[in-house]
């Protein structure tokens, strides 16, 4: 039994992911980290800094620049009982690995009738707002959420990054763990480095309200909380829900909130069409329709390629766009 030392640390989302990786590797020798430049260099965003020195090159593996290989090797390792946490440097470059993720990682349990599972985590920074070039700003979480057998998890604070990553690593099935890179160093929070996991497959209610339910995830949680503040100044009480696990979605919490408020605005930075906002809205339409006092609104990215830095501020849902949607919904009385 490993001695568990718990420490309270004030850290960023990056720091929290680093702490969780280190804790998981310390607790379970099957856990290893792999990806491009994650070792000696410490990772493109320094998420894995110090792990190579601490755990060695056999457990912190610098891979070739080959996403398909990263995906395939991780699937093979996971099937063999290793618990790989593979990093893709940017979500915009994850697609070569899709074949391994969609065709194998997600299906291993089903294909072998439960004899093999695929306990791997695929981490990738995602989302815009850092003035990056093409391929470095997209949010395509809906692609992964559409695939049966994959879990999609998106933290929105240091504490949730720590707890959800611990849970993802311990989970016996594959998890796509998407980190909102705009939040990587945007703020700090007290994180207890005690190895405790947060529950997967549940939403987190970050603010209680009774007039309106606002559902969001990732970097948009901050915009939504700011919008809730602006609405509160006008006497509108908004409940803010961080979905956190995008597949499967905890609709019970969202529906309980909508039954209370009767109104719902969904905010995501991914493109509108076919986004997960549509999935949530459809579930509310099926199971929460009788409580609705107003149409469900979605505030999302546009159905265009994520623009380059000069225009990205117009693409990402902003506080004014969110409050405008909320006011339209409130106007139904």
């Amino acid at each position: 039994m490993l001695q568990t030392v718990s420490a309270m640390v004030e850290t960023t989302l990056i720091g929290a992911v680093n702490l969780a990786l280190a804790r998981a590797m310390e607790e379970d020798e099957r856990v290893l980290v792999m990806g491009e430049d994650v070792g000696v260099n410490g990772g493109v965003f320094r998420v894995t800094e110090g792990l190579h020195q601490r755990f060695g090159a056999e457990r912190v593996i610098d891979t070739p620049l080959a996403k398909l290989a990263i995906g395939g090797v991780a699937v093979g390792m996971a099937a063999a009982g290793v618990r790989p946490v593979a990093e893709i440097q940017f979500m915009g470059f994850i697609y070569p690995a899709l074949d391994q993720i969609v065709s194998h990682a997600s299906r291993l349990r089903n294909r072998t009738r439960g004899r093999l599972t695929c306990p791997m985590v695929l981490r990738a920074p995602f989302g815009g707002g850092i003035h990056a070039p093409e391929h470095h700003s997209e949010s395509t979480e809906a692609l992964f959420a559409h695939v049966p057998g994959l879990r999609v998890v998106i933290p929105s604070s240091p504490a949730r990054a720590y707890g959800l990553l611990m849970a993802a690593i311990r989970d016996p099935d594959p998890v796509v763990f998407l980190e909102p890179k705009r939040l990587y160093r945007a703020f700090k929070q007290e994180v207890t480095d005690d190895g405790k996991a947060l529950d997967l497959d549940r939403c987190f209610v970050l603010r209680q309200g009774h007039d309106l339910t606002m559902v969001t995830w990732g970097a948009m949680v901050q915009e939504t909380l700011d919008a809730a503040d602006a609405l509160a100044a006008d006497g509108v009480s908004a409940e803010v829900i961080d979905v956190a696990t995008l597949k499967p979605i905890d609709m019970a919490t969202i529906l309980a909130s909508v039954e209370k408020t009767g109104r719902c605005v969904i905010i995501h930075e991914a493109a509108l069409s076919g986004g997960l906002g549509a999935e949530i809205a459809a579930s509310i339409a099926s199971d929460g329709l009788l409580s609705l006092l107003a149409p469900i609104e979605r505030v999302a990215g546009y159905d265009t390629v994520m623009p380059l830095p000069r225009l990205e501020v117009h693409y990402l849902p902003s506080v004014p766009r969110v409050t405008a949607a909320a006011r339209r919904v409130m106007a139904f009385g």
Partner: protein
Amino acid sequence: MAPETIFKLPDLGEGLHEAEVVEWHVTLGDEIQEDQPLVAVETDKAVVEVPAPRAGKIAERFGEVGDIVQVGAPLVIFEGAVPDAGTVVGELPVSERRIDDAVSEDIGKAKAIPRAAPAIRALARRQGVDLAQVTPSGPGGAVTRVDIERIAATLVDAAAVEPLRGVRRAMVASMTRAHQEVAPRICDAASSA
């Protein structure tokens, strides 16, 4: 946005890839201002003054007089600037802000919004029916169209009632008394006749 730590030789235009250091205007430890002349470099075309991109203290200087510096190679490093954020592209927003996002485990009881489909709500609004006053008969306690129409019909009957004031009130009072006192006697008289 936090300023860059490392200042690299910028693109000097005209397709030039390198320049020779002619003269340094700053030395290690100098506190300099933005746009202050940093270094003079000579390209194939001309001597160019490179100004400082930001204010700060010079921590390191690269290249001595006579050295060739490539475009994109470091010229100076400023002291006490941002820590290494690692990224090769983009600029991560950095702040010292602290958050404390307490999670609510219990979102409280529903305030019992009457259950009704949107079209039924619209019907209720048109008919002036308050959904909270309707006894629902639909599945899962939902208010139905029939429920709304039943209440609406009651409201139409009730709509004939209005408060009486002044002369009309006095008239109704006396007419009612007359009806109560006179009418029974007429009836009695009629029946005993």
